[in-house]
């Protein structure tokens, strides 16, 4: 079975009485499948599902400035329907990637940032960077399945000889603690300083900061023809929007060896959404079908902040938990419909709640792993309605 707990989409899960091979987070999704489930609601009152559907249809029907938001934990099929709905309504559409790793995915899809697959990493990678991400907690099996620990292809001798680990973070995270033999942990205050140091080494100059580490890292990277950066939110915010500097860094390293990039996004199908929207519009997120363009001002949090929307269809995400308070509280100014398998904090304030099946466990479909590899889900239960059927009915209603 496939675990949809995170963007690793582990494909070796066995469910028979217990849950085998999944990490803590992943196993929890299977074990507690019936806990904390959402109920159909209108204004906080539990109602029939049909009634809630009608209310949702009304909100969408009456909305003049609708936003469709979330979608990172659902299937490509549901994302497709959501994009259709947004198009029909000339609505805005956005996912969490606009404040997560969407920029990196866009650079990858536009082929400005060289990338690879996690299977290639397992078979070939020598230097593995975890930059601004504590995968031990966020993508628990990432290191053991794909990067540092497994043996594969050209890397048969195990991590102590065949890999070199570099962890970059502002704190000594659990992932950083694993940087022991043949490894480096670099505690940064400012990520750009490390990039600068490595660029200096490539120029044959001596950097002021991180001099020893930068020299060593460049030397290690040149030992192999395959190195990879797994970059997370820490890197994104560390760059302070200066992607050019980062692209330049990757380009320069690629003059002397090969360096690829894979984002460390957490949501299981963020890449799916980004890719799908990119195919249809040339943009990965924050798109306005009315204006037929993408931009910062169409990011869901920004639309909320600016009071640009009158209703939102929120799918499988919990903005009350995950957006800054000043923005989240604006959800109360508009009509909100929430489609989610679980009772979230947003459900507490939503006008309409539509419970759905859990993708991967109760309903099938496709997801795209963070490295672009397509994964077919293999549900072990059958439950309706799911995101696809709910969004399809809403689409029919308009």
């Amino acid at each position, binding site marked *: 079975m496939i675990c949809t707990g995170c963007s690793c989409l582990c494909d*070796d*899960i*066995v469910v028979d009485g*217990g*849950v*085998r*091979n*999944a*990490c*803590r*987070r*992943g*196993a*929890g999704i299977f*074990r507690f499948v019936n806990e904390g489930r959402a109920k159909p609601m209108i204004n906080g009152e539990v109602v029939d599902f049909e009634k809630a559907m009608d209310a949702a249809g009304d909100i969408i029907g009456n909305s003049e400035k609708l936003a469709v938001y979330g979608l990172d934990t659902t299937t490509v099929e549901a994302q497709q329907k959501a994009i259709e709905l947004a198009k029909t309504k000339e609505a805005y559409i956005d996912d969490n990637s606009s404040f997560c790793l969407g920029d990196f995915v866009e650079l990858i899809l536009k082929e400005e940032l060289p990338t690879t697959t996690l299977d290639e990493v*397992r078979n070939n990678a020598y230097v593995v960077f975890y930059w601004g991400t504590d995968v*031990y*907690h966020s993508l*628990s*099996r990432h*290191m*053991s*399945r*794909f990067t540092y*620990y*497994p*043996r*594969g292809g050209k890397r048969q001798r*195990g*991590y102590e000889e065949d890999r070199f680990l570099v962890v970059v973070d502002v704190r000594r995270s*659990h*992932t950083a*603690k*694993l940087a*022991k033999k043949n490894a480096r942990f670099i505690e940064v205050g400012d990520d750009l300083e490390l990039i600068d140091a490595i660029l200096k080494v490539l120029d044959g100059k001596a950097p002021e900061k991180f001099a020893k580490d930068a020299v060593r890292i460049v030397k290690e990277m040149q030992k192999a023809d395959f190195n990879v950066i797994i970059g997370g939110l820490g890197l994104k915010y560390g760059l302070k929007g200066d992607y050019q500097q980062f692209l330049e860094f990757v380009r320069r390293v690629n003059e002397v060896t090969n360096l690829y990039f894979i984002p460390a996004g957490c949501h299981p199908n963020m890449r799916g959404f980004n890719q799908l929207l990119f195919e249809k519009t040339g943009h990965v997120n924050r798109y306005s079908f009315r204006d037929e363009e993408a931009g910062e001002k169409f990011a869901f949090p920004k639309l909320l902040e600016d009071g640009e929307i009158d209703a939102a269809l929120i799918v499988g995400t919990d903005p009350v938990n995950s957006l800054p308070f000043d923005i989240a509280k604006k959800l109360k100014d508009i009509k909100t419909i929430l489609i989610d398998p679980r009772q979230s904090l947003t459900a507490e304030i939503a006008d309409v709640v539509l419970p759905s099946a859990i993708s991967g466990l109760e309903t099938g479909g496709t997801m795209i792993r963070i490295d672009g590899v397509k994964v077919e889900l293999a549900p072990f239960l059958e439950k309706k309605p799911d995101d696809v059927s709910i969004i399809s009915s809403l689409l029919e209603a308009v």
Partner: protein
Amino acid sequence: MPITPMEVYKLLPKTNCRKCGEPTCMSFAFKVINREKNIEECTPLFEDDRYSRQRDELLKLLEPLKEATETGLIVTEDLCVGCANCIVVCPVHAAEDPYGSAAGSGPKIEDPIFRLEDGVLKVINMTKCRRYGKNRILCVACRENCPSDAIRFLEG
């Protein structure tokens, strides 16, 4: 954390009376830690009231032995996130399960040393561990690659 033979020895009667079948209290202490002897086999400790305080202290000291497996490996499930680093890194798995745990997947052999069950590390067959039995060697690969100290060994 590891319990040393010295700590055990200090709390024994130290009379070398041999009632336990060992020539000295020190060698008995070693065997207790390796789980080749039970502390109860030192009968004077339990029969003579003079040792009652030492006995209580010793039993407390040896408490973790009970939860430990045959090789002295203890898993604290509450600290484990199920990253599987320990499973993949284990040299025995690497040799016996080349297409499963050696390559990063869940174990494909029936009796791995351990695997993830319900999200945490469960010991399945400790007898395969290199620390087990007469010809044991002091492997620490699994513990070394558990960043949250969910794996401990009683010794070394």
